[in-house]
């Protein structure tokens, strides 16, 4: 047998691999990076795509219209002094003052509501993710949170009238001749915190679930208890998600009207309780917020001062836009921190 002489191979040159597209390589690409145009599509499909474009542009147009309309009306009717003048009784829009009480009312309700909802929501989320025993209770809790998210706020408000009118909770609102009024900043904020609760729980759970198991194990391995791990490692890590949830909840609290109309008393000014020390007298008293002011000042409301309604709605919209922008910033920062390697 003659040994087979292999001829010298020319050096294999590996062609440089083409760079993979960075944006989501797992999906069939979008229109911009797809080889396929719409030229080969059946006419029906192209009509469908046209509907997509039309609806997408329509929603952009609606959003722009809302912002521009309120911007124009707001600039026309908003006077800076409205922000620090309380509402007053009068016959024309020039006599009825501003809406400072409503503005401060919104701030009070936001602070109190989130102060109640945030610790509760985070605690529930921690229990669900880190403890969650017995499993049946965990399932029931999930369903409870789901149900609270679906309950109309007007029903929460009616329930609030029952619990805060009870004599036991009389110290949270005004009491006259043994009858508890049951409408106060405390009452409204407590019910509003239920509106924000599901958002905070969902967001915090998402954050906790995204932390891989080995992080917890590393912490247990150096002797930390579960409670300490949660407090020192897990919660600081998912702070962006907690903040996102809190701000989404804040948006819902600021925007809710039904609970305010029912549980904050039908006034346009602060009505502090007499004979109580400073912050408590206001918090136990009735008041108003921007949403309630817009509702009452709109042409269908009791005040019917559309110009002030525009101005207040403009301020409210600015708050919502600012919150949206803040959520965006936190979200982006959370993504920049990076994901865990599993």
């Amino acid at each position, binding site marked *: 047998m003659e040994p087979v002489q292999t001829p010298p191979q020319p050096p294999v040159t590996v062609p440089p691999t083409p760079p993979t597209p960075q944006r989501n390589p797992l999906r069939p690409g979008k229109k911009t990076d797809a080889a396929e145009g719409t030229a080969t599509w059946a006419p029906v499909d192209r009509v469908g795509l046209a509907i997509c474009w039309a609806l997408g542009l329509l929603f952009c147009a609606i959003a722009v219209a809302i912002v521009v309309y309120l911007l124009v009306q707001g600039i026309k009717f908003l006077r800076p002094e409205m922000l620090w003048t309380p509402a007053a009784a009068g016959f024309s829009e020039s006599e009825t003052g501003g809406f400072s009480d409503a503005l401060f009312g919104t701030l009070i309700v936001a602070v109190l509501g989130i102060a109640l909802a945030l610790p509760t929501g985070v605690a529930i989320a921690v229990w669900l993710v880190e403890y969650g025993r017995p499993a049946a209770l965990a399932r029931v809790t999930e369903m409870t949170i789901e149900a609270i998210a679906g309950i109309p706020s007007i029903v929460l408000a009616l329930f609030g009238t029952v619990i805060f009118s009870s004599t036991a909770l009389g110290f949270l609102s005004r009491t006259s001749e043994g009858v508890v009024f049951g409408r106060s900043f405390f009452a409204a904020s407590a019910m509003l915190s239920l509106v924000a609760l599901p958002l905070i729980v969902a967001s915090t759970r998402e954050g906790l679930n995204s932390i891989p198991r080995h992080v917890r194990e590393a912490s247990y391995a150096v002797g930390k208890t579960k409670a300490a791990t949660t407090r020192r490692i897990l919660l600081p890590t998912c702070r962006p998600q907690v903040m996102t949830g809190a701000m989404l909840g804040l948006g819902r609290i600021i*925007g809710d009207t039904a609970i305010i109309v029912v549980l904050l008393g039908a006034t346009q000014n602060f009505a502090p309780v007499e004979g109580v020390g400073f912050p408590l007298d206001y918090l136990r008293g009735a008041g108003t917020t921007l949403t309630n002011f817009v509702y009452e000042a*709109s042409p269908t409301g009791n005040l019917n001062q559309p110009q002030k309604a525009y101005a207040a709605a403009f301020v409210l919209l600015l708050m919502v836009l600012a919150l949206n922008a803040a959520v965006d910033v936190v979200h982006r920062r959370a993504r920049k921190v990076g994901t865990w390697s599993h």
Partner: protein
Amino acid sequence: MEEQLPQEYGPKWSDQRVERMLGALVVGVVGLLLAMIVTVFVRAWPSFSHNGLAWFGPGGNVDDQLNAIFLSGQNGLEYVYTFHGWPLIWSTILITGGAVAIGLFCALFVAVFIVEFAPEWMTNVLQPVIRFLASVPTVIYGLIGVVVLVPFIGNHLVTEPQKASVAGVISLTGYSLLAATLVLTVMITPLMVSIFSDGLRAVKPGWLEGSLALGVNRWRTTWKIGVRSARPAIVAGTVLAVARAIGEAVMLAMISGSVGFAPNPADGLIFIYEPSRPLAPTIVKNIDQLSSPPANATLFAIAAVLLFSAALFSLTGYVARRAMSKYGAA
């Protein structure tokens, strides 16, 4: 000498204790929900027991009935509970159904557009827009509806002969089913879009690629494979939107017309211009009657109906989402 441990290692923050404290809080929240359900139904009971199933049926003028109920509680007379809520229920069904039907159509197309077909700049515009529309307070939608949409419908869409044809029954001013449905659609569509697009993004890429490899174009692949496998998300989003729409009170109180009247589709297209008032706005409009015991019971009965239907819908959504995670598309 005993070493001073940080507080969190001491008996005060031991694991068992923390677990028990958190568990107590969770039980408390669950208990609160149960208490709410029980309270609402107990308070509602007089109204339901006096009317029986007729509560849900038609008969007489609802607004007159509500007024009589309120007055009977004020004057120390015998309490009156007679209430036939059909016009309110029918109005809720029409407005919610209309808004969800239109919203479902729009949201499907917009979600498909965002996930699959929009160029990147369009996605970057559309996503914040959807998030913004979802976060606008309802009272602002109500205000814009009252000052823009309602006058437009009243002055330009409703014709004089139409106004004259129903003049004896009801006045067509623009506060209408149409206005309420349109504004509600804009309110709930963003909610659906965000849940739908999450579902569409979670579809397994391999399934879509398989279809594409067979030569099916991207449009049909998206609808036949993507949308179909995201069905649980679509059910969940729709159901949440229904729950939100049923519970919407303030915006509808502003623009639905606030008349206890049941628009009849058999009258022809004019019914979309007719005013009505769904269940939730009825509570808002009559909230100052809570001090009258029979009126209180009636309002809680309305709340009980809302609570029941909203809970039903959100639990359906919960079940649908659990099913979704079973398919691995969540």
